[in-house]
C-alpha cells in the first residue's frame, strides 16, 4: 500500500471511491489515513473539516441543512481536538519524567552499591529488588582485614522516591563512621539520632545490624524494629527466629539498643530479610512465614547466592511478577 498523503485531494478521492463502491479496500485506506493523521498530530476537528470540504466539492448541490449539521459537528469536535493535543503533550511529559526517574534510580544504585565480600570462612548470598524503580530497602557490607564482616539491612517506610532519598541519608551517615569495628548497638544508637533529627515524623527506618567474626565464628547483632531474621540449624534442618527487641529508628532520641551474640556452627545459615519477603501476597492471601522458610529450606543445599536467587524467583512467580514491596534477602553460611 503506498503511503497516503494527508491532503484534501487524497481524502476526497478516497471518499468518492468509497461512496461509489462501498469497498472494504477504501475503508482500510481510511483506517491508514486516521493512523497517519495521529502520527502527524492532526486533530479530529481537522479531519472533519477535510470531510466537509470534500463533500462540498463532490456534491456542490449539497442541501443547506446537511452543511449546517456538519458545521455543528465540527464545532462539537473542537474541544475533543484540544483534549487530544493536550493528551499528546502530557504523554511526552510522562516519558520525560520516566526517563528522569530512571536516571535517578541508576544514580541511587551507584550511590548505594555495596560489594558482596568473598570470604573463605563465610559464604554470602545477597539480593535486593525494588518494587518500583527506586529502592527503599538497603543493605551494606563492610569487611575489614581483621576478619569481621559487618552487615546492615534496612527498610525505609514507604516506597519510591521519598524512601530512596531517606536511604541515601542513612548511607552517608554510615560512611561517616570511623573505619574501626563498631558494635551494632552503637551503630544503631547513632543512626537513630540522625534519623530522629532529620526525618519527617511519619517516616521511620527499621534496621538490623550484624557483625560476623570469621575468626571465632560469632555473630553479634542488634535490631531497630526490623523484620526478624532466622538462624538455620543444619543438623536439625530447623529454623530459629532471631527475634530481638528494639525500637525503629527515628521515633525517640533516647532509645538504646541491646546487643546479642550467637555462636555459629559449621554449615549453619543466618537469613536476613525485609518485610517485602515476609509480606508476600498471593492474590489476597498472605504467605505464611512457614512457607518462606520451607522455600529457603528446599534450596538449602545450593550455594548461598543461588538460594537467594531461587527464593526470589519463587515469590516473584507467586506474585504474578509484580512485587508489592521492595524485596531484600541475605544469607550467610559458615563454610569452614
Amino acid at each position, binding site marked *: 500500500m503506498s503511503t497516503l498523503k494527508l491532503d484534501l485531494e487524497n481524502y476526497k478521492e478516497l471518499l468518492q471511491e468509497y461512496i461509489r463502491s462501498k469497498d472494504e479496500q477504501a475503508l482500510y485506506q481510511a483506517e491508514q489515513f486516521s493512523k497517519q493523521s495521529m502520527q502527524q498530530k492532526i486533530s479530529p476537528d*481537522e479531519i472533519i*473539516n477535510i470531510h466537509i470540504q470534500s463533500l462540498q466539492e463532490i456534491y456542490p448541490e449539497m442541501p443547506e441543512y446537511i452543511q449546517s449539521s456538519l458545521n455543528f459537528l*465540527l*464545532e462539537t469536535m473542537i474541544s475533543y481536538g*484540544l483534549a487530544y493535543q493536550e493528551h499528546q503533550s*502530557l504523554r511526552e*511529559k510522562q516519558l520525560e519524567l520516566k526517563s528522569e526517574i530512571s536516571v535517578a534510580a541508576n544514580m541511587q544504585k551507584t550511590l548505594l552499591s555495596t560489594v558482596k565480600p568473598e570470604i573463605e570462612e563465610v559464604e554470602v548470598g545477597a539480593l535486593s529488588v525494588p518494587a518500583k524503580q527506586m529502592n527503599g530497602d538497603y543493605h551494606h557490607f563492610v569487611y575489614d582485614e581483621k576478619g569481621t564482616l559487618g552487615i546492615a539491612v534496612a527498610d525505609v517506610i514507604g516506597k519510591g522516591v521519598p524512601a530512596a532519598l531517606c536511604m541515601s541519608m542513612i548511607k552517608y551517615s554510615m560512611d561517616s563512621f570511623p573505619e574501626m569495628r563498631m558494635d551494632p548497638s552503637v551503630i544503631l544508637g547513632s543512626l537513630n539520632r540522625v534519623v530522629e533529627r532529620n526525618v519527617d515524623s511519619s517516616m521511620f527506618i527499621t534496621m538490623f545490624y550484624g557483625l560476623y567474626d570469621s575468626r571465632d565464628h560469632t555473630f553479634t547483632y542488634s535490631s531497630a524494629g526490623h523484620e526478624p531474621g532466622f538462624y538455620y540449624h543444619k543438623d536439625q534442618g530447623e529454623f530459629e527466629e532471631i527475634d530481638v527487641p528494639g525500637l525503629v529508628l527515628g521515633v525517640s532520641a533516647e532509645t538504646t539498643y541491646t546487643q546479642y551474640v550467637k555462636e555459629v556452627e559449621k554449615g549453619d545459615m543466618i537469613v536476613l530479610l525485609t518485610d517485602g519477603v515476609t509480606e508476600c501476597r498471593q492474590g489476597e492471601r498472605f504467605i505464611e512465614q512457614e512457607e518462606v522458610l520451607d522455600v529457603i529450606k528446599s534450596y538449602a543445599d545450593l550455594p548461598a547466592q543461588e538460594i537467594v536467587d531461587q527464593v526470589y524467583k519463587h515469590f516473584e512467580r507467586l506474585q504474578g511478577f509484580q512485587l508489592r514491596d521492595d524485596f531484600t534477602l541475605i544469607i550467610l553460611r559458615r563454610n569452614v
Partner: protein
Amino acid sequence: MEFQSCVNIKKEWDIVGARQLGRDIARKIGFGTVDQARIATAISELARNIYLYAGTGKVCFEALEEIDRKGIAIIAMDDGPGIKEIGQVMEDGFSTSGGLGAGLPGVKRLMDEFDIHSEEGKGTEIRVVKWLR
C-alpha cells in the same frame, strides 16, 4: 482598518454574546469554518475564565490588517484576583482535569499568538491573535 469592539462579561449568557460577536468579526475578515470554530472556542475559554474567577470583565476584538496579512486579536480583561503562578496555569493538565475545559494552554493552541499579564490582586489581561492563512 482597525477598530475595537467589546462585550462585557457579567453572566454566563454573555459568553455566548462574546462568541457571536467574535465569530462575526472573524467571518468578515475571511476566516473559514474551522478557524471560526477555533476562534469561538478560544473566546469561550477566555470569557468563561472571567466569569468563573474574576466575576466581571470584558472581551474585546480587533481586526488586524498589515501589509501582507490579516488577522484577529482577542483581548480579555478583568480586575479579578489575578494569577499567582502563571507558569502553573499554562501547564497542560493543570486546569483541565475533570473536563472543565481546554484551559489557557488550549487557548494558546487554538491561536497563533498568546500574551498574558497578570498581577495578584489587580487583575489579568490576556491578548491572543490568529492570523488568516
